């Protein structure tokens, strides 16, 4: 996926980003619509950015208990912190912002294993 023809349109609430959705209409480019978050800035409420928080939680950049975590559409401190950790871990320029390089990396297909301490199930012992 490339962002060379990025638009400034933010994510439409009428659409759904759902990485676990198996509906065929979502199967072309999973996470691809995160590209609309390029240049989104902290403090703003951005429709759909809660899905990005779920992404960061899934891959080990938000440590809070999933059930108690309120994934709002606010670009808050939690998201900025996760973003910085993500940029550090993947060797990106650490800006704390959703710049094009970072978003391009986020939307790339990837391994399902967490980037931080892998989840317990990935570390299960043979029984």
């Amino acid at each position, binding site marked *: 996926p490339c962002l060379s023809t990025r638009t400034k349109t933010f994510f439409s609430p009428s659409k759904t980003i759902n*990485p676990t*959705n*198996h509906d065929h209409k979502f199967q072309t480019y*999973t996470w691809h619509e995160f590209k609309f978050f390029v240049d989104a800035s902290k403090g703003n409420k951005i429709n759909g950015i809660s899905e990005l928080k779920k992404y960061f939680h899934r891959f080990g950049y938000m440590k809070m208990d999933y059930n108690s975590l309120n994934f709002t559409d606010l670009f808050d401190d939690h998201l900025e912190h996760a973003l910085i950790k993500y940029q550090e871990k993947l060797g990106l320029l650490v800006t704390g912002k959703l710049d094009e390089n970072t978003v391009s990396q986020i939307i*790339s297909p*990837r*391994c399902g294993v967490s980037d931080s301490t892998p989840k317990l199930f990935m*570390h*299960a012992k043979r029984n």
Partner: protein
Amino acid sequence: YAFFTGKPRWSRSIPITLTYAFSKEYVINSLSMLEIKDAFQRAFNHWASVIPVTFMESNDYGFADIKIGFYKGDHGDGESFDGVLGVLAHAFSPETGRFHLDAAETWAVDFEREKSDVAIDLESVATHEIGHLLGLAHTSVQEAVMFPSLKPREKKVDLKMDDIKGIQALYGSNPNFSYKALSESDTSTNNG
């Protein structure tokens, strides 16, 4: 390079032989079994060439150390696959041996033949996931096999210095391995 918490590795004495088998139930039809097996054999060989571990294919799926299958959506381990692209595969740390690939991907062994824009190189993903099965976690080194992402139509099968140093920290070096075999660019990139 990085390890899983507790630095787990296959604990049997070195040299280690691990068996692997393919599920007969969870398969894909877009590639022949021969093509799939060839790609995996190459992937296992990348690791076997640098550490004292041998991989042997087995027909006994139930008793194999490494169990390989292509799954769709929710397949019972709590980490559902998500259709085309997104998450491509996942594998468990030692000594579990489970290796799951997303059956919905356009898996490819030859980009000349598979023209799809969303084709994913099977050998590249297999090589990465075998790193997890052996005990490596994700690295920050973008060129390395253990970097977490892989773009469509990208091929990344050659172990880089980061991968090799990581896996040799767990298992030691294959006596036949020599750093001279690595290209100069690999050596210089990672020494930096």
